[in-house]
């Protein structure tokens, strides 16, 4: 952040108490809630913080870089009189920033006089446009059965050791504006990409950087990196800084922006840490009671508004501790976001990429972006049918594991066959494979044709007539 932009404020020498990343400053007058402070340690090094609580006699300050090296007497605190702002500019695409929005790629400060509050402001629901345009990602498990729309927030729920980064990179690389099946595939409009890393390893950040470079996207990517060895408290600001730039690009410059946030679990832990130090009453697993509202203040910065052509689509990545989907982080995320793509360990072991576990995955907005005039008329029912059939496959598998495959009825055996083919041909695809929507629908129908027609109660009879390719003679 440009120092020149900062107006002077009152300075207080000496602090009352330091505890973890929290500092209590006494004797400052007229401190504003949520105000930014500049902290100078005894050697004159500067760091930044933010006011969490104010009273007449003291202010509670959260130090972004952590309190290591700060002393009671040797620390001076300057209150800057404003909430945290970052510069925003189109030239920030192609650049790399730290978790607070300062350039770390050796380049100059972004040249702009436009600064925006990292907290943003809630979008008025009446100003929104309901998302309806689908994004073709070329991945069957997303386009086919969990369609992503422009202006949607759709997280990847994953676990340690699973290829969520590859999947996110593939989505980013292949995403184009969706076309109706059969319409000529034109060069899609390109997305601007805002990437925020919170507490991830350097390798991960590096993987994304390489992936963006290889696909030639680097010039339209802005990266905000708070890596595993960076101060955890900064993580609270990182996604906000990234979304602030995204909002500028989408709503003021009319661009379509794809925001990738990884890893939200680390963000939640930073929040929990601050809350613990402040001695707040915890709710579940030590997370603060306001975790839902806090996460919502990030995820809800997605969407489209009427006064702009642009859109923000969010793909947060979240590794579920111990693969537990009921953990507060995935749980509260799932309540806020418009669906979730869940990666599963079993499929991953079986060598299936992307290992998307279809049944718990969901896109809430899918129904409004597919069907006649958007993808293809049969798409909604086709998707429901695939889901229903695959759910049935799971029951049949459970049964087969008890009584053996040979004992299954003829129909159940067909379900088993369908299930295997579904995982190998529909879910499974190469990292470089970019399937059109027609191709995805075609594969789905081919798989459904393994089953007898009578089992297909979700699709209508005309559709069976038109697309069913099986040999089943009954009806």
């Amino acid at each position, binding site marked *: 952040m440009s120092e020149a932009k900062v107006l002077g404020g009152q300075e207080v020498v000496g602090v009352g108490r330091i505890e973890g990343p929290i500092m209590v400053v006494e004797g400052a007058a007229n401190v504003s809630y*949520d105000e930014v402070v500049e902290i100078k340690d005894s050697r004159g090094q500067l760091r930044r913080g933010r006011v969490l609580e*104010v009273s007449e006699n003291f202010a509670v300050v959260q130090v972004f870089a952590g309190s290591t090296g700060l002393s009671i007497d040797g620390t001076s605190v300057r209150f800057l009189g404003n909430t945290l702002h970052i510069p925003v500019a189109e030239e920030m695409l192609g650049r790399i920033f730290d978790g607070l929005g300062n350039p770390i790629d050796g380049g100059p400060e972004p040249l702009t006089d436009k600064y925006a509050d990292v907290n943003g*402001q809630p979008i008025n629901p009446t*100003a*929104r446009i309901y998302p309806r345009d689908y994004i073709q990602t070329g991945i069957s498990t997303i386009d086919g059965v969990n369609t992503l729309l422009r202006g949607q927030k759709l997280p990847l729920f994953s676990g340690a050791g699973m290829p969520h980064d590859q999947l996110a990179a593939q989505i980013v690389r292949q995403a184009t504006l969706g076309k109706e099946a059969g319409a000529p595939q034109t060069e899609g409009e390109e997305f601007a990409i805002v990437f925020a890393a919170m507490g991830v390893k350097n390798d991960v950040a590096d993987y994304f950087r390489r992936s963006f470079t290889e696909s030639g996207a680097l010039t339209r990517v802005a990266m905000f990196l708070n890596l595993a060895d960076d101060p955890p408290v900064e993580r609270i600001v990182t996604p906000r800084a990234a979304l602030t730039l995204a909002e500028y690009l989408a709503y003021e410059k009319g661009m379509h922006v794809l925001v990738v946030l990884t890893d939200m679990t680390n963000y939640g832990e930073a929040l929990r840490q601050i809350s613990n130090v402040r001695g707040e009453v915890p709710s579940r697993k030590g997370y603060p009671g*306001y975790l839902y*509202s806090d996460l919502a203040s990030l995820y809800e910065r997605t969407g489209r508004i009427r006064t702009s052509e642009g859109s923000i689509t969010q793909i947060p990545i979240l590794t579920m501790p111990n693969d537990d989907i009921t953990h507060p982080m995935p749980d509260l995320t799932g309540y*806020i976001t418009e669906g979730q793509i869940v990666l599963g360990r079993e499929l991953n072991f079986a060598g299936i990429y992307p290992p998307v576990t279809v049944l718990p995955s969901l896109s809430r907005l899918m129904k409004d972006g597919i069907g006649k005039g958007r993808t293809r008329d049969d798409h909604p029912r086709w998707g429901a049918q695939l889901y229903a059939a695959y759910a049935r496959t799971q029951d049949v598998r459970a049964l087969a594991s008890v009584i053996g495959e040979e004992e299954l009825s003829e129909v159940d055996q067909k379900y088993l066959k369908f299930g295997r083919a579904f995982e190998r041909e529909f879910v499974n695809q190469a990292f470089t494979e970019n399937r059109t929507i027609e191709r995805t629908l075609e594969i789905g129908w081919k798989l459904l044709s393994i089953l007898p027609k009578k089992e297909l109660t979700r699709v209508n009879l005309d559709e069976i007539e038109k697309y069913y390719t099986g040999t089943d003679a009954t009806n």
Partner: protein
Amino acid sequence: MSNEVGKITWISGPVVRARGSKNVGMLELVEVGEDRLVGEVIGLKGDQMTVQVYEETAGMQTGETIYGTGLPLSVELGPGLIQSIYDGVQRPLPLIEQAVGSFINRGARFDSINREKKWKYTPKVKVGDEVKGGDILGVAMETDTFEHRVMLNPDDSGTITWVAPAGEYTVNDTIAKLKSGKEEKNVTMLQRWPVRRARPFVNRRGANIPLITGQRILDTFFPVAKGGAAGIPGPFGSGKTVTQHSIAKWADAEVIVYIGCGERGNEMTEVLQEFPHLIDPRSGRPLMERTVLIANTSNMPVAAREASIYTGITIAEYYRDMGYHVALMADSTSRWAEALREVSGRLEEMPAEEGYPAYLAGRLAEFYERAGYVNNLNGSQGSVSIVGAVSPPGGDFSEPVTQHTKRFIRCFWALDKSLASARHFPAINWLDSYSEYLEDVGNWWREKTGKDWLTMRNRAMELLSEESRLSQIVKLVGPDALPFTERMVLETTRLIREGLLQQNATETVDAYSSVEKQIRMLELVLYFHERGMAIVKRGAPINLIHDLPVVDKIIRAKSTITNEELGKFEDLQKEIDEQMSQLDAEYRQ
């Protein structure tokens, strides 16, 4: 109207403490700081007051002033509520958008009810009439067809000394003059009512008319009565919102109040963009013309989320008082409870379970008790039905909000993750759900359809619970090990599940099932069962019944037979007869 009552001494998120006058009342509406943000006094101790602020407090400083208003947090009531969309403290969102753009700014102030708009008003009282609180003074046409009955404030009474002639008036114009004692006062169409105080009525009536929603699993299997309260708990992605939207669209109430409380912005936008284009099957008018929306999305200030529930229920009661049936959806009461918890945490109150304050249960009870089918002060009858969504963490129904809610509702629609995963919608688990209104509404069904709904409904439930028992066995040994009679049960329950319980909210024919259609479908499936069972008992193999062409037709009937062509069910029944008789004959040879 407002005077200085204190200076801010402490700020933490939505909670502010101040020192000053002792004349501030508990729950008084105050204006906080130089931006004059809306707040409410929630604690008093000596000259110290604690205020919860309904807007973002970033940038506020200690030493700033708090201004009192002398009034409790209230809503404005009058013509113009319908088709409005408000935030949690009744600020009109479209005006905020016009004034400050796409993002909600702090401190934006607007009248909740339009002061300029003129309403076509016809008086219903004349000079010399004695009137008491709640009496209808006249009617204003709120939409082309909706009659807004203008009532005297429940706290007033007296003699009418002047009546405005029929004509067009704004809500500020005097429509009558009232003399009580020596005082004469002007009455307008606008009144204010404190949100935390239930509007009075004479007494409660029995709730014995079902709220018909056109959703088969609700109306046929787990009905809620008009004036009743129902809870929909479910893990994320199980379809709470879709169910709430379906009820808001199709419920046979005259007014719908939809509270989006701490939920997604896109969802409210969906309602806003969809409802004006959907036609109410009863009135033939756009659904928006009976709807009031309260949108306090998850990223809007948390204290206003707490208020939004009260704002909504007060508006609902106001229309109830006119003699209307009102249905209120609150999505989600868990977010409201979390707002309570957040404020309570900032006040450093002693937490009870999972950090929630000890008064959580009391607040939930207060809210759900504002539902009811009542005799109004003016002699009319009206109802407020509440449908509250609950979002239990991890889908675990043993958490405090779900558990306490269960104590104050009589109808429980349990959403199920595994049904949702299989795309069985509405994903309401028929074994975990219950309705205590079954007996109460049985008569209504008998009068309306001439059929014994309750017996049929119970028979279907019996089959479903039998299925659940049998499926345990099937999981262990496979279906082939079951006798044909039990497999016949499984055939029928498949028809019940796929043909009746599953309902597609996005398909035109299937989205709404009339009561008559519902009972015909139920009857048909049970008929199929009785016929099939008779044949199977004689030893006919079950797969022949499974393969009957009519089976597929029964499953598809929900989307092939419209509410207007119920005669086709007779044809289906004939087909069952023909095919079963043929099978019977074949088998007997």
